[in-house]
């Protein structure tokens, strides 16, 4: 356990060495945040000040929390484990007395949690100062929101890991990663809230782990969903965590038998 904690810290510290990249990320997040403000505020206003339960303040919370999570939730499909399998460096991982799956996910989560400092929190602060946002009245929304946020980050890491280990079977995982990027951002609710989806598409989204990565934490943190319903969303995140971890364990075990590292 202590070992995985150290790996978490290592991921955190590694990310801390890339300050300029973090700053660049924040600038991009803010620019796209303002674009989302322009589009989504207009949509709320044209439908008479409320759209699918969102007023302008709530929409602002959605925009800036989701933008802030972008540095921590992996919606690109690209992972270190995919590169390590492709280059054969994964051989080194198998030389350690560690569960390769858990070690990989822990390091990724450490990196992601660090990104909240230079990208997550500033993004929300900038949004609040520029356009204002709704804050939850229920004090429980904050601790529950923090738990939901962390679960979102972890589910993102355990799900995208599955894309990475497809490299045990596929020679090239960039196609899968690209597909993941297109689908995950949309279904996670990055572009518009899932509540704005047509019914059938919302059903499709909730059948995937993607809303658990971003939409649910945003709903809990912004206070849009509160009380028992919020606890329900967190429970759903836990369910996706269990499913993706189980799949990751199976895939790693099966993939290891297929591993081909020739030469070097």
């Amino acid at each position, binding site marked *: 356990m202590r070992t995985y904690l150290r790996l978490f810290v290592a991921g955190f510290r*590694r990310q801390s060495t890339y300050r300029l990249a973090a700053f660049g990320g924040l600038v991009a997040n803010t620019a796209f945040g303002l674009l989302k403000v322009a589009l989504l505020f207009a949509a709320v206003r044209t439908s008479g000040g409320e759209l699918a339960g969102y007023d302008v303040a709530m929409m602002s919370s959605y925009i800036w929390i989701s933008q802030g999570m972008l540095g921590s939730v992996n919606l690109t499909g690209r992972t270190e484990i995919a590169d390590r399998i492709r280059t054969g460096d994964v051989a080194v991982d198998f030389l*350690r007395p560690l569960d390769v799956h858990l070690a990989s996910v822990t390091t990724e989560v450490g990196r992601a949690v660090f990104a909240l400092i230079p990208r997550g929190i500033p993004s929300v602060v900038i949004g609040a100062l520029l356009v204002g946002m709704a804050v939850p009245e229920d004090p429980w929304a904050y601790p529950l929101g923090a738990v939901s946020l962390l679960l979102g980050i972890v589910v993102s890491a355990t799900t995208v890991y599955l894309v990475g280990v497809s490299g045990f079977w596929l020679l090239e995982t960039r196609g899968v990663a690209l597909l993941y990027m297109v689908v995950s951002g949309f279904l996670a609710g990055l572009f518009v809230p899932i509540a704005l989806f047509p019914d059938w598409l919302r059903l499709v989204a909730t059948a995937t782990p993607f809303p658990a990565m971003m939409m649910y934490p945003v709903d809990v943190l912004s206070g849009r969903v509160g009380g028992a319903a919020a606890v329900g969303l967190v429970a759903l995140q836990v369910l996706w965590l269990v499913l993706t971890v189980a799949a990751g364990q199976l895939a790693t075990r099966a993939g290891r038998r297929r591993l081909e590292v020739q030469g070097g």
Partner: protein
Amino acid sequence: MITPTIGPIIETHDLGRDFRVRDGLRRRTVVAVDRLSIRVEPGEAVGYIGANGAGKSTTIKLLTGILMPTRGTVATCGLRPMADRRRLAREVGVVFGQRTQLWWDLPVRDSLRLLASIHALGRVAERERTDELVERLELAEFLGTPVRQLSLGQRMRAEVAAALLHSPRLVILDEPTIGLDVLSKQRLREFLIAERSRHGTTLLLTTHDMGDVERLCDRILLVDRGSLVYDGTLAGLSRTVGAERVLVVDLAEPTPDLADVPDTRHLGSEAGGMRQRLAFDPESTTAARVLASLSDRAELVDLAVEEPEIEEIVRRIYASRR
């Protein structure tokens, strides 16, 4: 804290591994390792040599549970590498000359701490072992430097420290001296010799460097196309292929070809006979004896002995088999 093993530290029976590679649209099977049966006892130092693509790295990955064998059986430290991978990882340290096990963007010190934690070393054991390795591999000057900023020689020393931090019983080195300058090679070899005499560590190394084999190994395993073709001492290997040494002498004045020196073969003369090359077989004479006979015939100014290249020996063995 070295647990005594009963039986060999490495034992394989008819071990084999195939790879499927794409050849245009068709797939074909490449046999990387085939019918490999070897046995290494605790404390041995074994040089595992062969041409590129002979299956050396694949064998290492089969021994350590990274790759699954296609055929045959393998036991390392009495464990089954695939099934007992994590237990085996505590007994074995591997240095891949071409891959890093350090965290690229963290200082060396952090990588060593992480590895100590990964191997669940106690605080005291961690400090003692780290201090020992830092001193003997001379890491102190760059402990705080991120790995990506190290020179190759520094990185290799850090890699060796990382692989040996948990005091493994078996140390496997895959091309450990590749790309290193003479001094760095020398230091690394001295360290490995000391480590072995102190801790009784078993060494298995692949290399293209004759110096590594001569200085470090008391046994050679030679592989060709995935199969073992020689198992014995280096001297025995040289004997098998008749590896001659070449004595190059610079003489004080132009001299006719020295074709009559006992137990030697005149290879050629340069600069009007001021430089001459003589081959001799170390089994039938010595460099000293050849020199003695030479100085009766001419005045020597300078000399050099050329060692046979490992590639040359390997090539001759391969040629004799084909």
